[in-house]
């Protein structure tokens, strides 16, 4: 089945999200739509899926104009969508989730789960998507949950599948698996619209690439196009994808972690007695598949976790057991993993967010009196220095894009005297331009003699920025390696294979 969009235009007030977009997805092809956050990709897909109504333009299926005004219309004409944030009920089983909204029951109004199970098994076999129908969704890894979403679309006979940023939440292995699944689906005749801003993935699977910038189609290219070219078309200017790791001065150990164990509320160790140190003027990356204790380790460094054992020495001073405030003020800047939840307060203004951990300090306050004047004048400086794109510093942070929210967090954390920067997944979900910015700031901190600990699941980022790489697996640091390591070696470490075993093979 082919899907064609002709002249789709959608405006929100004076803002044009989609400007007469033309697009054709051929039968059995993977069509990638590439664009920065806010380029209009999601708006376009929401129109195709019936969640939004276009101001003008038409949607054609196999050459015939169709009217899609809600998601069930979309399902009826064979369009399925896997959203970036899964639409699953965590406490339900896979089968229950999949039959949701299409429940079949016997005469006694008993749900017919057997039929759902059988249908799931059939789809699983046809498309090679192995999922246990009776597993509870919340117990499944993210990659499998995504398969459940894909099965959900396929079971209602979707012939065109929209995948909205599907790899944003996946580990490298899961990503590879998803790309394989996409190829299988394509070979079975399913057309796929693949929305992403990750260049490597696009080049790996796409048959056609359409690049959208500021609501307009700027180019339709083939996957042979180089990453650099794709990036510059997406951003609209030349982009430096791998920052130079030029020679830089390195000092002595600024942060030492000894025998650090982090336990959850039930007493189970999530981080198991790790040891490492970071030198001044060095980037130490902590790599690993998500969920191997990196998040907890990062949080433990500023005492955000409740049960921490061992020792954290910042410039020789023990800070384990200090309050969060004291840990921060001792000289650690912290960029949390989730901007929205931990980094910013959405309903607060930009100016207010910029003093979240500074409001008790001079010049922002005297005694308990908060100075709005100082807060605002300092905010103006940060906005200029960190290039935060906003109309006014009094706008709520929730109105900003992801990249600008992250800039607010970074501006705040770097505007007090620090010795160490702890950055947890600092570029997750950001567009190319913002990623570039974040990388520049991280390297600038390194060059200024700070120790940087970068927690990241993105291998490219780890290899590009780190001086040394620590790999975490099941709560332990399996090894700390030089940054000249290859992707393959890193991948093996991340899968729990230590170098001794690598050598033996």
């Amino acid at each position, binding site marked *: 089945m082919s899907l064609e969009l002709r002249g789709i235009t959608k405006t929100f007030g004076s803002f044009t999200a989609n400007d007469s977009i033309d697009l054709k997805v051929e039968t059995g092809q993977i069509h990638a739509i590439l664009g920065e956050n806010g380029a209009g990709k999601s708006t376009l897909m929401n129109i195709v899926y019936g969640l939004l109504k276009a101001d003008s333009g038409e949607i054609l299926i196999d050459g015939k104009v169709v009217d899609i005004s809600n998601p069930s219309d979309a399902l009826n004409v064979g369009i399925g969508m896997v959203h970036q944030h899964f639409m699953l009920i965590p406490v339900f089983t896979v089968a229950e989730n999949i039959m949701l909204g299409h429940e079949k029951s016997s005469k006694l109004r008993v749900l017919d789960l057997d039929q759902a199970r059988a249908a799931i098994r059939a789809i699983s076999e046809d498309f090679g998507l192995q999922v246990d129908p009776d597993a509870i969704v919340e117990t499944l890894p993210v990659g499998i949950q995504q398969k459940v979403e894909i099965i959900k679309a396929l079971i209602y006979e979707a012939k065109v599948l929209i995948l909205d940023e599907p790899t944003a939440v996946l580990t490298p292995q899961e990503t590879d698996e998803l790309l394989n699944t996409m190829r299988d689906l394509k070979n079975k005749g399913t057309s796929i619209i693949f929305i992403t801003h990750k260049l490597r993935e696009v080049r790996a699977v796409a048959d056609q690439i359409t690049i959208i910038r500021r609501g307009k189609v700027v180019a339709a290219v083939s996957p042979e196009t180089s990453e650099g070219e794709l990036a510059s078309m997406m951003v609209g200017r030349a982009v430096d994808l791998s920052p130079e790791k030029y020679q830089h001065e390195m000092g002595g150990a600024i942060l030492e972690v000894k025998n650090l164990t982090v336990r959850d509320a039930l007493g189970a160790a999530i981080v198991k007695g790790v040891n490492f140190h970071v030198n001044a003027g060095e980037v130490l990356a902590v790599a690993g598949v998500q969920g191997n204790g990196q998040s907890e380790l990062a949080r433990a460094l500023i005492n*955000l976790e409740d049960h921490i054992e061992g020792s954290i020495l910042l410039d020789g001073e023990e800070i384990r057991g200090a309050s969060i405030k004291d840990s921060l*003020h001792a000289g650690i800047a912290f960029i*949390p993993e989730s901007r929205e939840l931990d980094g*910013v307060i959405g*309903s*607060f203004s930009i100016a207010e967010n910029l003093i*979240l*951990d500074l409001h008790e300090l001079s010049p922002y306050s005297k005694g*308990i009196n908060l100075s709005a004047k100082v807060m605002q004048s300092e905010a103006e400086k940060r906005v200029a220095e960190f290039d935060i794109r906003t109309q006014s510093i009094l706008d709520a942070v929730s109105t900003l894009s992801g990249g600008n929210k992250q800039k607010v967090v970074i501006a705040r954390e770097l505007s007090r005297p620090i010795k160490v920067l702890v950055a947890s997944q600092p570029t997750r979900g950001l567009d190319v331009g913002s990623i570039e910015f974040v990388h520049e700031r991280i390297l600038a901190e390194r060059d200024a003699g700070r120790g940087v600990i970068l927690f990241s699941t993105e291998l490219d980022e780890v290899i590009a920025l780190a001086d040394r790489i620590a790999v975490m697996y099941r709560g332990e640091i399996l090894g700390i390696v030089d940054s000249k390591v290859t992707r393959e070696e890193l991948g093996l470490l991340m899968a729990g294979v230590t170098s001794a075993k690598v050598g033996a093979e």
Partner: protein
Amino acid sequence: MKNTISRIGQSIKLPGLSFLMAFTITGIIIAVSDEKVMNKIGSPIEFLKSAGASVGNAYLALFQGSIYDNRLAKSNFFEGFYPFFETLVTATPLILTGLSVALAFKSGLFNIGAQGQFIFGAIGASYVGFRFELPVGIHILAAALAGIVLAAIWGGLVGFLKAKTGAHEVILTIMLNYIAAFFILWLLKTKTFLRPGRIDPIAPEVADSAKLPLLAGENFRIHAGIFIALAAALFVWWLLTKTTIGYKFRAVGANSQAARTAGISVPFVITSTMMICGALAGLGGAVHVLGSEHALNTDVAGSFGFDAITVALLGRAQPLGTVFAALLFGALHTGGRMMQSNTGVPLDIVVVTQGLIVLFIAAPMFVRYIFRLKKLNASTSLTSKGWNG
């Protein structure tokens, strides 16, 4: 300046429209429940006339009972304002309990416990008021302070338990309300509190030196408490917008996780918020006893603590909004009595109106639909916090 006006316009649009709709529906109920009106259902014109008269009379009585009644202005114009002063007397404790609930909202807490805190404020003020003899001024201060401290402890207990154990403040405050309500029943039977020579539960009257000064002479009940309430509103506004403490409160209220990550102590915020909330509601109890009741009785709290929730919601948890909402509720309460005695429309209809106002405020989408509004600036986060908030 133009921005400020349009912002204020935006923020009163929802309460204003809710108010309008609530009165419309109340009007329909008044008309329909009036037999004289319903008897004329056969002829539409007569029916409408009669319905108009019935509703008009009821609302006129409501106005006369709460704002101005020219029939009372016998010797001079001023006397006609008697109902308005009564409205202020009723609104005074309501402003304070309303502020207590509103401040808690700002910190992301749902304080259902203003009732219990009010009771302890009243107990403290009453005891110091009748037990000691102190100079004027100082006596008032001491009595009010006793009420504030007792209630701050009572409220702070909730914050402390939540901060230490994670117990939900809604459950805690509801339970503590029961304890407070029964505590005062018991207390008024003890020798210390029972007025000598009485068997019904009432405490001795507070000394004259502890009574709040009357503002308009002996004939009116209006007392200085209204200024205390307004000063408290100003204090809450100052605390929230001008201090680091208020900044912490708002930060935790808006996103406690981000606030914690930035080093703000959430237990401190929860405990201190609940203490200040308790102090505000307790001041309400103290002012009520020292200003208009003068003697502690079992029903001293009325429904001030519960109406406070509605008042804070209607005032959108803003100090100024809370003051206006409390004035409105005070007017409805006092005016409702006149409506009942003059037109036979039951006082309960006022409760219906209050309920409707809150219903519409809690359902902004509905108001928006009715009035075909494109944008309605509604702070739904106030009411949709849920149990894990």
